[in-house]
């Protein structure tokens, strides 16, 4: 019994998918700057990345450290 070769798939263009999600023609790159569907635009992404404090990182690391003691 032979195993069929995996179907070759072209990589998905992320921009095209975002365009389809927003109902925007795929060739309209300029219109992709803001998604009317979710409001997740470039500014949202920048705010999200910036909204992480040293305290948040400390809490993340503390949780990992506590769990490490349990699994040690």
């Amino acid at each position: 019994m032979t195993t069929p070769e995996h179907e070759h798939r072209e990589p998905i263009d992320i921009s095209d998918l975002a365009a389809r999600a927003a109902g925007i023609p795929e060739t309209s790159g300029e219109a992709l700057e803001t998604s009317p569907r979710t409001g997740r635009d470039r500014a949202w992404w920048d705010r999200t990345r910036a909204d992480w404090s040293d305290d948040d990182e400390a809490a993340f690391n503390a949780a990992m450290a506590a769990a490490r003691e349990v699994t040690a």
Partner: protein
Amino acid sequence: MTEPERRPVGLILDTSAITAYLTAPSVASMSVSEVMRWPAEDGEVTGLPVAALVQAATLGHGVAALAPLTEHPATVTLADDWPVIMTAYELTGDLGAAAAVAARHSHAEAGVRILTDQRGLYRAFPRKLTIAVDHRGLPPLPRE
């Protein structure tokens, strides 16, 4: 011989986000690709934890179905030592989420988020660690 260029990880997908991405065409898959676009614009890559890929594959998607994601130029596969994943598993109770947390811990800088459709798995961490897959808005697109 020079080292291959390594781009920073700007986003991490867990199993649920990978699964959402693969259920195309759907609002969920569009939501994932929409978020992946922003780190790509900054020259960053989206991290795909190995264990999360395996979990997604075993959920019925198969290896070939994962290719559009794993072979995309804006993604990178991330592997971690099993004790790190085990540590994260203690906190999440889920292998895919644990793999995402381990990847965040080992491969990403502060501020990098995990995209997930199961935020409840990350209760042990600051809520801001995760970004939710967005299901709002348009109905699923018709299959081509």
